[in-house]
């Protein structure tokens, strides 16, 4: 039985450094190539030695597919392609291709220039890596080679995020990347057609969460920001530069506009301007509202949101600041946080998931005294709020996607093991399909039952149809005679004559003959006639002929009568039939053995 093997190198029962290997129909595909935010050592990248031990990456992998531009999905790409060495195609959507290098460059700068790491990929490597990228369009089927084809579907989550449908022959796998089933202010909802893949590899970040309606969340968020502003406090919203940041910007921007508010909103990073430019360009990837109104006004041209300068943090009066990074583990957001943490009028809103070990995670868990570098403690007096704005599908969303795609097996990645366990149970119970959740390095194997396509010659089909009389019933199987030829990797069903001709063989006739002794007091010709009338009355649907040369022919069966010289009354009936008429022949011989009924004339 053919098998599909899935091995996560990263993101198996874990969030971060997504990298999943899939072997399907003899093809090997790498899905995503990300880095881990929580580590600064070798664990930050996926363990490519798993592959290299069998030779070079390029020899092993047929293609690499990147689902979206978040660093935990593409952060290790230059490392893999340039430092480990991979020259095959890398597939990603147009927006991802545009924005990904910006983020990689930023990441490189922070690691090399700020932290002073060596042995890291260079700007040139990022450029070289991006040269290997083949862009994808939504719903466009791309042939990687003769057998492997991939197709991208809209995934929501961030601009340009895609789910990919990978197909080899009749086996297929869908990898979701990160996706969102509820539309938001700037992106639509993920959508896939009923492609019935063999495995659906889905993220499961929010495996145990069913979120409130997004409207409640938005209202809460706006209300909290508004209240803090009104009492003169400052609001810090730590975000990652791209993705949620734009969502929240649009939310606040439209709110400011609708309510005519005056307090300044700042955005802290220079990189956003570059990225916002791409957001303005890729309007087709956004949601209905933005797509429809961009002619009047592009929603990403913000009126109220201005660039942040470090000195503004000390300005008096209310303000809202978006600052990177999102988990308060380093950079500007942490600096501003330290400045504002002492005042209880201020507020920090964590709009998404925080990895364990980051300051974001600590303060969300209620820690009020933090140890920052230099062993000084920091009293956290400002209000800490958590708003789930991350654009991942929740439990119900995951179930909804399963219902949309109708997979035969399910595989969960990109989530915490305990939560996955829960969702796995639900899926197995609800859809009664198998669900896998391999850890990193573990291989999940799914046996498939692919249908094998066979070409059938039209003549044969027509002949069979003519035989059958009425139209075939599509619900009932029907058997037919033919010869299966396997040649040049293809299967063909043809009639036996044609098969013989193609193979250059002579046809051999196989005939069975049989003698039946019969007691009949009539002359030979009379006996034959009696047999003829008897058979005619028994075999209604068949052509029975009495030929003048003293034979009776039923279909292709020849019947002759001769009397034994010893006893004129004992007649020997000679039956002869071909192999094809075996059934009828044996029936006739059995029938004649019983003798002729007396009532015949």
């Amino acid at each position, binding site marked *: 039985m053919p098998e599909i093997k899935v091995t996560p190198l990263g993101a198996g029962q874990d969030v971060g450094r997504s990298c999943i290997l899939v072997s399907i129909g003899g093809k090997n595909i790498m899905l995503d190539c990300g880095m881990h935010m929580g580590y600064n050592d070798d664990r930050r990248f996926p363990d490519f030695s798993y592959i290299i031990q069998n030779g070079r990456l390029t020899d092993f992998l047929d293609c690499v597919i990147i689902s979206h531009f978040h660093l935990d999905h593409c952060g290790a790409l230059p490392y893999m392609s340039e430092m480990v060495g991979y020259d095959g195609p890398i597939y990603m959507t147009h927006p991802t291709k545009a924005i990904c290098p910006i983020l990689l460059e930023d990441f490189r700068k922070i690691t090399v220039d700020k932290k002073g790491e060596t042995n890291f990929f260079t700007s040139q490597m990022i450029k070289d890596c991006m040269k290997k990228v083949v862009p994808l369009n939504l719903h466009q089927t791309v042939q990687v080679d003769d057998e492997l084809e991939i197709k991208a579907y809209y995934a929501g989550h961030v601009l340009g995020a895609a789910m990919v449908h990978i197909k080899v022959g009749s086996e297929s796998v869908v990898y979701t990347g990160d996706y969102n089933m509820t539309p938001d202010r700037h992106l639509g909802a993920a959508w896939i057609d009923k492609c019935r893949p063999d495995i659906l590899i889905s993220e499961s970040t929010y495996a145990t969460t*069913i*979120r409130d309606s997004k*409207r409640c969340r*938005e209202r*809460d968020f706006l209300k909290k920001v508004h209240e803090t502003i009104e009492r003169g406090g400052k609001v810090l919203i730590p975000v990652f530069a791209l993705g949620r940041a734009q969502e929240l910007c649009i939310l606040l921007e439209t709110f400011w506009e609708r*309510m005519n508010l005056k307090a300044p909103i700042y955005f802290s990073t220079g990189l956003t301007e570059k990225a916002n430019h791409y957001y303005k360009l890729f309007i087709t990837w956004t949601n209905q509202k933005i797509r429809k109104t961009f002619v009047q006004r592009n929603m990403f041209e913000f009126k109220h949101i201005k660039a942040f300068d470090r000195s503004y943090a000390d300005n008096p009066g209310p303000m809202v600041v978006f600052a990177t990074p999102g988990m308060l583990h380093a950079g500007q957001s942490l600096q501003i946080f330290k400045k504002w943490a002492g005042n209880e009028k201020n507020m920090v809103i964590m709009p998404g998931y925080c990895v364990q070990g980051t300051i974001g995670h600590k303060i*969300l868990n209620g820690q009020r005294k933090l140890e920052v570098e230099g062993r000084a403690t920091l009293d956290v007096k400002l209000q800490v709020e958590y708003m789930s704005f991350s654009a991942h599908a929740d*439990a119900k969303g995951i179930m909804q996607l399963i219902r949309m795609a109708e997979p035969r097996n399910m595989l969960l990645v990109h989530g915490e093991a305990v939560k996955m366990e829960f969702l796995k149970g*639900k899926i197995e119970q*609800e859809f009664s399909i198998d669900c896998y959740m391999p850890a990193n390095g573990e291989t999940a194997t799914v046996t498939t039952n692919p249908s094998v396509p066979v070409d059938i010659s039209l003549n044969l089909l027509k002949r069979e149809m003519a035989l059958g009389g009425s139209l075939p019933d599509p619900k009932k199987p029907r058997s037919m005679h033919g010869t299966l030829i396997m040649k040049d990797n293809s299967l063909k069903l043809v009639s036996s004559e044609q098969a013989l001709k193609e193979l250059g063989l002579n046809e051999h006739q196989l005939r069975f003959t049989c003698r039946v002794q019969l007691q009949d007091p009539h002359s030979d010709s009379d006996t034959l006639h009696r047999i003829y009338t008897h058979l005619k009355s028994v075999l209604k649907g068949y052509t029975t002929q009495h030929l003048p040369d003293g034979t009776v022919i039923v279909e292709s069966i020849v019947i002759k009568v001769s009397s034994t010289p010893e006893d004129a009354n004992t007649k020997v009936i000679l039956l002869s039939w071909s192999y094809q008429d075996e059934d009828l022949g044996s029936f006739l011989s059995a029938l004649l053995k019983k003798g002729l009924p007396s009532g015949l004339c």
Partner: protein
Amino acid sequence: MAAHLKKRVYEEFSKVVQIPHEDVPAKKLRLSKPSKSAALHIDLCKATNSTDALQYLLQFSRKPVEAESVEGVIRILLEHYYKESDNSVRLKIASLLGLLSKTQGFSPDCIIDEAINTLNNEKSHQVLAQLLDTLLIIGAQLPESPTVRQRLIEVACKHLSDTYFGVRNKCLQLLGCLGMVDTPMNKDSNVLGGVRDVQSIISDYFGDQDPRVRTAALKAMLELHERGMRIHQIIYDQACRLLSDDYEQVRSAAVQMVWVLSQLYPESIVPIPSSNEEIRLVDDAFGKISHMVSDGSWMVRVQAAKTLGSMLQVSPHFLEQTLDKKLMSDLRRKRTAHERAKELFASGEFSSGRKWADDAPKEKLDTNTVNLIASGACGAFVHGLEDEMFEVRIAAVEALCQLARSSSSFAEKCLDFLVDMFNDEIEEVRLQSIHVLREISTHITLREDQLDTVLAVLEDSSRDIREALHELLCYTNVSTKECIQLALLELLKNLNKYPTDRNSVWKCLKFLGSRHPTLVLPLVPELLSTHPYFDTPEPDMDDPAYIAVLVLVFNAAKSCPTMPALFSDHTFRHYAYLRDSLSHLVPPLRLPGRKQLYGLDSVDSGCGSGSVESAQLFLQQSLNRVSTIQNLEAPGAQELLDFTIRDLQRLGQLQTELAGAADFCATYLNCQLLLMKALQEKLWNVAVPLCFKQNVTATAAAQQILEETYKLEFLYSGLESRQVATIHLVRLQAKALQLTLTARTRQGLDTLISSCERFLQDIESFQRLFLTELPHLHNSFVEKLLELIPRLSSCKPVEMVKVLQTTLRQSGLLQLSLPVQIHRATATIIEPTGESDNPLRFTSGLVVALDVDATLEHVQDPQTTVKVQVLYPDGQKHVIHPKPGDFRRPGPDRHRLITQVYLSHTAWTEPSQVEVCLLLAYSASTASLSPPPRLGWSDSIDSLPPPEASVEGTIPFSKSVKVYIMPKPARR
């Protein structure tokens, strides 16, 4: 083959009979046009190959065919059909057959046999499908013939097993449109040998391999339902299975099918698969359709969301699930309250995502009770309201509204969700949800936090949203006095931010006050800032915010007699002022100790309805009094009319309910008065040659009467044909007056003759239009004229003028009967206010946009009739047609025009004023009551009769507003 040849022979034979029969009358009728059939025949014979033939047919299909030659044409087409070997030509012929059978006045039953015969030998599937389509058209033309139907159904059944989907589609369509509704077919089944019920035949194709055929089968079934056939309940299961079809059209049709069945058999019981329980069918269907709200295709989602709204019989607990996203358990299996409680507990294992880390794993719960997805109705509306496509969201909001109106507990529950929708990104959705909330607001009382969210929207910069919200607040019930205070505060904030909302905010407070008098009462001292010991400064009477507060307080005081005791002196003074200046906002109050001063008001308040009646009585009496005037020249008649007109005008001002009627009467009487005066001029006694230009006043009067009659006819709504007849009569009188006056001044006989002819035409059309009303016009001008008409039409103009003059003088005053409701169309321009001293500056030659905001009342079809007129200081007039989209309809008989008017002019040296006013356009054709009969598709345009002479004009119906503008010369 022999049979085919025989048929050919038969066809030839029939042609020989037909053609002379057809051609002879055609020749007689129109010599210029050769018969279509003959021409076609020749063309088709000429065609050497199929392309040519197709060209001829295409040309032919563009031309109309008259009903009497259709049959001949069809026979020729059929003949060619049999000869033709090319599929495309046959296809075209088949489609032409269908087109021709639709010709009005042609009955296709004579060709039905031939049409059915063509099917037998047809090999091409496409042509077959087209032929079936033709049969469908023929069948639809002959609804009264059961035998034809029977035959067509047999044909359809025969071809149902075709391999081509199009043929099966058409067969199903045929079955759907023609299947017997009233008589069950199994009655005939013995005779016809196993003809089955149409429904079961159609339902066999629910499982067809082609999705298009499945859709067609569902549609055919729906068509049967539309035509009144009772769909069997057995289909329900099949329809439910189709809800999970791979193709969206099928799913969409299946949603409709399931809905139809749920409406037909709401109470029947269906089993739940995988359990031994049963529920009502409507509940089951509701669950299944709710499921479709999260379908992959948005068309299906819209369909499903819309459908949900009309399933009112669904059980309340199912309904409430649609708003619950977290309760994931399969509620259909619930049996006891104990189980239910357990499940509620179980549902808590999912975190809401609102608090950090509340999804930390707890102990494993019994997952059997928690079902994530098969729970049907769960959260359907939560999904629908969050949908990506605003079409789905609007459909969901509307469905929510329909369901909430029928169930108050559901209304209570969906409140939060609707309030959330106020924050939608698309204004249309926000507006719609505000409207919906208003509609269901009778069921609900807003809590303080909900009110808070609602009021937050008052800061919205869109005017439509704010006004919709004001409207909503007018109907809202609130529970505490804090709510009132909050609402007032926010409304005042709104007023401060957007001063143009003044009227709308005041109106809103008026209703808020009169709805919650007891809640306002404890707030009064604070609101009016009175103090028990000290006198507080008197607030500024021109402050809109202070007026707003007073409106709230006075309206509350109306049903709360203790409140006036809390007022301070100046409040009473302000009351008197406001009662006069804003009488529509401030109700009459019975104030202690001030009865003598405000006697009139208290009488008004005492018998509000009685006063309307008395006013009505007064109106009627005045009219009766006027009707005593027998002759226009009766002495004292003029004075009486003068008085009555004045009375009526004043009545109209006093009693708004009767303003329309009073104005109408006054205008009518004014016409009579003018006529009377004109007839009593001295000039009538002077010999013709002597008076040259002395009849200026009379001419002006005639003109004025004419204009007034147009006003009477088009400015007032609710007129019956009796009144219209009266108005036309007056107009006729005015025209007669004009005619006599022309006769006296002009010497030219030609003009006189032509105007006499025109007048006679007028009389004729009057007679035609108001034939039914003539008996009521007893002893009137027209009656007399009609008696004289044989004489008039033959006599000379001069004589006719004389007759007219005497009749005019003799005719009496026709009494006006009042219709039940009569309203005058009015318009008020809210913006521009005309108060600004700053001129609007712009470069001359370019345009400047002026925002115009006006309310229109009692205007029918404002999109076509209302225009904006701009009058420049140099007398230039521009009439601007607003776009249909600029009109909104906030209430019955009320419209709102918000538009931009583009002004442009050459340079001026000084700023100057332009006048903007609204016009009501009318077009009074002489035969206005009956639109000209539509011509068939036959004749070309040049044979159309010239449009009838109609009088078009405009009536200004709003006060004009002056706008200061200043076009500056362009800088070089």
